[in-house]
Structures are given as structure tokens and as C-alpha cells.
């Protein structure tokens, strides 16, 4: 027997959780999470946020380097998430502006970080140092930060 109730429940569940309304051109980017709040959620768009088991877990950077990396990660994340949005809505001026704001802020933090703690990109000016700093541990997967 086909169970209509189950089907309705299922569609309500799916629609409420995963089929949130599409963004429109006039959606207000001020409604986005700030880069850090978005980063710890893995999602900059509050109306798409849907958590499971845990709420957003605050990062607890243990030292100056980890603190600065968290800032860099947050800004880079905001750029990644808005990038995917702009791929589909390239004419959204407000979002483009926000993309470039976070991109610029991220670049500033990046060059400051590389100056203090070593290169993240091969083309960093930190690679002018002798001996070649690129090879220095820790590599990203090694953790312990």
C-alpha cells in the first residue's frame, strides 16, 4: 500500500532541510554569517545552514600562529563560498563586492602570516630566505597546532 502520509512527511522534511529557497538577485548579503561564523559552520549562508548532532564548534587556536591561521582560513573560506555562488549569479553586484572585500582582507593577512611564519604559497616572498623555507615542517596534515 502506498502511504501518502509518509510521502508528505518526507517531502516536508526534504524541503525544510535541503531544498531551501533559491537566492534571488535582491538577497541581502548582510544576512550572511561573518567569515569566522561561516567558517566554523562550513556555510556562509544562514538560510542554507542545517546542522547535525553538533552546533558550530568554536576553534580554540593555541598560539599566535594558530590564531592568525584561523583568521586567514576564515577569510579564504568566505571567498570560496561566495565564489561558488558567483559562478551561478555573476551579476550580483553586492556579492561581488563582498567577494572582493574578503579577498583583499585575506591577501593582507596572508602576506603578514607568511612574513611571520613562512610560506603558504610557492610564490610567497618568504621563499627569498636562505635556506629554502618551503620544505619546513609542520606540513598541513601533521597537526599539533
Amino acid at each position, binding site marked *: 500500500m502506498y502511504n501518502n502520509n509518509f510521502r508528505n512527511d518526507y517531502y516536508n522534511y526534504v524541503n525544510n532541510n535541503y531544498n531551501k529557497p533559491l537566492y534571488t538577485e535582491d538577497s541581502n548579503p548582510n544576512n550572511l554569517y561573518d567569515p569566522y561564523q561561516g567558517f566554523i559552520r562550513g556555510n556562509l549562508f544562514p538560510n542554507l545552514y542545517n546542522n547535525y548532532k553538533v552546533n558550530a*564548534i568554536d576553534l580554540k587556536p593555541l598560539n599566535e600562529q594558530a590564531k592568525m591561521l584561523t583568521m586567514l582560513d576564515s577569510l579564504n573560506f568566505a571567498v570560496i*563560498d561566495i565564489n561558488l555562488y558567483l559562478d551561478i549569479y555573476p551579476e550580483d553586484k553586492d556579492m561581488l563586492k563582498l567577494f572582493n572585500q574578503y579577498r583583499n582582507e585575506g591577501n593582507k593577512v596572508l602576506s603578514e602570516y607568511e612574513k611571520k611564519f613562512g610560506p603558504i604559497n610557492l610564490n610567497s616572498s618568504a621563499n627569498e630566505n636562505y635556506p629554502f623555507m618551503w620544505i619546513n615542517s609542520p606540513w598541513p596534515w601533521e597537526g599539533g597546532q
Partner: protein
Amino acid sequence: MWKYEKKLEYPINIRKKDLKMAKYLMAQYGGPDSELSACLTYLNQRYSMPDDKGKALLTDIGTEEMAHLEMIAAMIYQLTNNSSINEIKEAGMGGYFTKHDNSLFLSDPEGIPYTTSYISSTGDFITDLESDMAGEQRARATYEHLMDLTNDPDVLGPLSFLREREIIHYQRFKELRNYYLENKIQKNS
């Protein structure tokens, strides 16, 4: 081309060894709905997208999946680092150890090696996007199962992050698919 950034998309700093959890995480490293499958699928399908929006989205999501694969690898690495033979045996990873020692290998939790039969491309961009939406949903469900299997906040943080990315990717694929359907975008041949 691609350039390496010497950092993760989201930090992995796991303090407690957990070989069993590492084994389960292999599902997202070399399993059917793994980050590797997502990465290879999108970077392969982008060549048959009909317009610039599609070429951009598949390239950018495919690139992000590569960073997710690296996060999964980092988690497995840290969960198993410096483990003893006894710990390996107790976690049921003796078979894996026999073949690979402590090295990373692209297989699922049962040791089944990765195969490209896990990925697809049909040349029909609507079909491909709908398949990608389903893939994101399967990966999201897998992350929920993985989150059910641990209570370590060092592991739950990154898993929760990765799960949420599946939701965003699903949404963007769906928006692109709907845009193609509503605007009757045709295959350019």
C-alpha cells in the same frame, strides 16, 4: 593548472588516537561516495558543461573536493600516527597493515581498492548534474553516519564542516540544473 597551498581548508588537530574511527573514515577517502569520487567526477564532467556558469562551478567545486580529500587524509594520518601492532590488531586493521603498513591507500573501510567505476559522466549535463546532486546527498548521509560513530570534538568539528559543504554543493548544483531547465539551455555541439 593547480597550485598547492601549504595549509588545510579547515584545520585538523586530533589529540586522541582512534584507529577504528580512521578505518571508518576510509569510506570518504577511497569509497564509492568519497571526496575522491566527487573530485574526479566534477573535474571530468566540466568538459561537457554547456556554458561558462557550468564550466566554472564544476571546476571550482571539483577543486574544493581535492582540499576535502586532503582533510580526510590528515584525519586518518593523525588518528593512526605512531600506533603499535597491538592497537592495529585490536582495531581490525591487521589486514590493511599487512598490505600497506601505516601508509595511506585509497580503499574503503573493508579494504576494497578504489575504482573509477565509482564515477560517472554521460555527456548529458542535466543527467550529470542530477547525478552530482545525488552524490552530494550520499556523501552528506555518510558524514552523518561517521558523526554517529564518534564523540571526539577534534573529529566532529571537521566532519561537521565537511557535511555542511555537501549541503552547499548540492544547492549550487541544483541551482545550475534549474537554471538550465528554466532557460532551456541546449547542449552545444
